[in-house]
C-alpha cells in the first residue's frame, strides 16, 4: 500500500490578501487543484486541513474554511498546527485503505494578526509568557547561542538569506522577489541581536492544497505520482531553559528515523533537493547539521561551500524558503508541495534537473520544537 501526491496547487504568496476571506482563499487553491486534475469535489473522499486558531483569530479555525475546501457533508478533520503534520494525517487516511483520495489544505494570513503577540501566547503563563518572549526574541537567543558556540559569522548567516531570496526570484508564487546582498542583510536594522530585520522572514498570506491518492487511483489521475518514502515526527522540550539551544536534537532524531524508513544512508548523495522551514537565517545552517548534510558546527562552512545553492550537491529551498514566503501554518505543506513540483519536473525556472528524491521539513512552535521530516520519491 502506497500513498501518492497526485497534484498540488498554491496561491501566490503576498503580504496581504485583503480581498479574500479564509473561505475564499482556500476555495481559490482547491478549485485550481480540481481544474488541474480534471476532477470535481465529488471525487474527493475526505479532507484534512492544517491551521491555527491564534493565527486566524478564530477558535475551530477549520470552521471558517468548510465551504472553501468543499467538505460540507464530507469527513473533514483538522490538524492544529503546521501543514506538514496535516499532510501526514491525510496520508494515514489513504494508507488505512478507507479513502481512495484525501485532500490536504493549509492556509494562513499573517497580515490579519499581530504575530509577536500570537507567538507570545505559545509560552506558558507561569514562567515565560510574562517575560514578553516571542518568536523574534527566542530566535535571537537560539541564533546567538548557536553562532557563538560554533563560531558562525553573521556573514555566513546572511548568505542563507541571499541564497533563498535569489531562489525566490525563480518562483512565481514567492512573496518577496527581490535580490539582496550580504551587505544588505548586515546593514538592516537589528531586531534581536544578532538577528537583523533581513535575517528574519516576512509575514505572508496564502494557501496550498494537494490531493493524495492510493496507488490505483493515482495511476488514473497522473503520470507522475510522488510517493511518500519516509516520515518521522519528533518533539523537543518545551521550556526554553530545558532546550538544547545550539543543536536541533529533535530534528536530528526525526531525520535519522525518516532516512531509515526511506533507505537513505548518505543524505547528500541520496537526496536531490530539500525544502526546509527555516525561521531565521542561521536556523537553516542548524537544519543542515541536524539533517546530516554537514557535521555539527559546520553549517557555516557548508553555506560557504555553495553546495546548497542551485546547482550545488544538495540545493536547499529552491523555492526561496520561509525567508521569502512565510505563510505561518502553511509553510510545511508548501515545502511538501515544492518537493512534489521538483520530483514531477514541474518546478519551472527553479527546477533541479533529474530530481528523484526530495526532503520536506515542517515545524511547529518556537525554534523547531515540533519537527516533521518527510522523504518523497518519484517513480
Amino acid at each position: 500500500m502506497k500513498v501518492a501526491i497526485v497534484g498540488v496547487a498554491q496561491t501566490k504568496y503576498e503580504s496581504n490578501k485583503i480581498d479574500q476571506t479564509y473561505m475564499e482563499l482556500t476555495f481559490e487553491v482547491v478549485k485550481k487543484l480540481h481544474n488541474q486534475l480534471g476532477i470535481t469535489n465529488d471525487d474527493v473522499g475526505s479532507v484534512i486541513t492544517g491551521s491555527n486558531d491564534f493565527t486566524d483569530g478564530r477558535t475551530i479555525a477549520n470552521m471558517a474554511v468548510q465551504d472553501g475546501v468543499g467538505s460540507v457533508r464530507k469527513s473533514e478533520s483538522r490538524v492544529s498546527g503546521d501543514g506538514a503534520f496535516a499532510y501526514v494525517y491525510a496520508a494515514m487516511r489513504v494508507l488505512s485503505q478507507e479513502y481512495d483520495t484525501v485532500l490536504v489544505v493549509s492556509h494562513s494570513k499573517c497580515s490579519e494578526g499581530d504575530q509577536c503577540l500570537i507567538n507570545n501566547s505559545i509560552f506558558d503563563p507561569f514562567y515565560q509568557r510574562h517575560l514578553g518572549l516571542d518568536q523574534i526574541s527566542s530566535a535571537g537567543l537560539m541564533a546567538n547561542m548557536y553562532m557563538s558556540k560554533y563560531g558562525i559569522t553573521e556573514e555566513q548567516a546572511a548568505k542563507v538569506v541571499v541564497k533563498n531570496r535569489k531562489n525566490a526570484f525563480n518562483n512565481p508564487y514567492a512573496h518577496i522577489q527581490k535580490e539582496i546582498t550580504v551587505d544588505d542583510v548586515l546593514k538592516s536594522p537589528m531586531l534581536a541581536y544578532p538577528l537583523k530585520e533581513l535575517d528574519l522572514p516576512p509575514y505572508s498570506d496564502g494557501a496550498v492544497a494537494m490531493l493524495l491518492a492510493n496507488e490505483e487511483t493515482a495511476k488514473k489521475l497522473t503520470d507522475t505520482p510522488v510517493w511518500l518514502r519516509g516520515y518521522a515526527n519528533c518533539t523537543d522540550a518545551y521550556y526554553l531553559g530545558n532546550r538544547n539551544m545550539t543543536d536541533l536534537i529533535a530534528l536530528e532524531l526525526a531525520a535519522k528515523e525518516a532516512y531509515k524508513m526511506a533507505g537513505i544512508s548518505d543524505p547528500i548523495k541520496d537526496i536531490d533537493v530539500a525544502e526546509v522551514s527555516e525561521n531565521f537565517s542561521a536556523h537553516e545552517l542548524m537544519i543542515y547539521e541536524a539533517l546530516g548534510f554537514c557535521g555539527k558546527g559546520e553549517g557555516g562552512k557548508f553555506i560557504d561551500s555553495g553546495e546548497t545553492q542551485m546547482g550545488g550537491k544538495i540545493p536547499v529551498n529552491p523555492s526561496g524558503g520561509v525567508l521569502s514566503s512565510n505563510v505561518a501554518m502553511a509553510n510545511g505543506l508548501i515545502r511538501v508541495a515544492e518537493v512534489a513540483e521538483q520530483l514531477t519536473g514541474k518546478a519551472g525556472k527553479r527546477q533541479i534537473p533529474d530530481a528523484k528524491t526530495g526532503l520536506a521539513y515542517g515545524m511547529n512552535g518556537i525554534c523547531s520544537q515540533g519537527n516533521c521530516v518527510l522523504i518523497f520519491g518519484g517513480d
Partner: protein
Amino acid sequence: MSDDKRVFEGRIKVPYKHTAGAYVEKFLTEIGQNRKIMGVKCPKCKKVFVPPKMVCFECFEKMEEWVEVGNQGTLKGFTVVTHKTDVMPLKPPFAYGIIRLDGADTDIVHLIKESDPNKLKAGMRVEASFYAKPRKRILDIEYFKPI
C-alpha cells in the same frame, strides 16, 4: 471599523486565570517572600529542575524533593531585543538570557538588564535582582544583572 472597508478591525480580548498548582506557587512564593530560588529534583535522573514542575519530562517521574539553588549563575546565552511589543515588561532595548543557576541542572530563561550586546558574554556570572513588592509572579525576580 477601519478606514479600509475591506477589513474588519476587531480584537480577541479575554481575561484568563491560570491555576498555578503547588509547584509553581511554591516557587513564586519563595522568590517573592524569601528571595530564595527553589528547584525540584528528579528521583530517577537526579536532575534539579529550575523553575520547578511536577513531572520530569525525560523520566516521566513525579518529582517531590525540593532543592534550593543559588541566586547567582552562569549566563549561557543571550539576545538583545530592539523590537517592541505590548507584553514586554521592560522598554527595549534589553536582553533575554538563558542562565544556569548554581546547583541547577536545567536553565532558566529571564530578563537581563543590559542593552549593549558587547557587554554580555556567554560564561559571565549573573545574579538575580528581586522586585521590591512581590506579586507572586515570575517577575518577582525583576531581572538578572551581570556581576
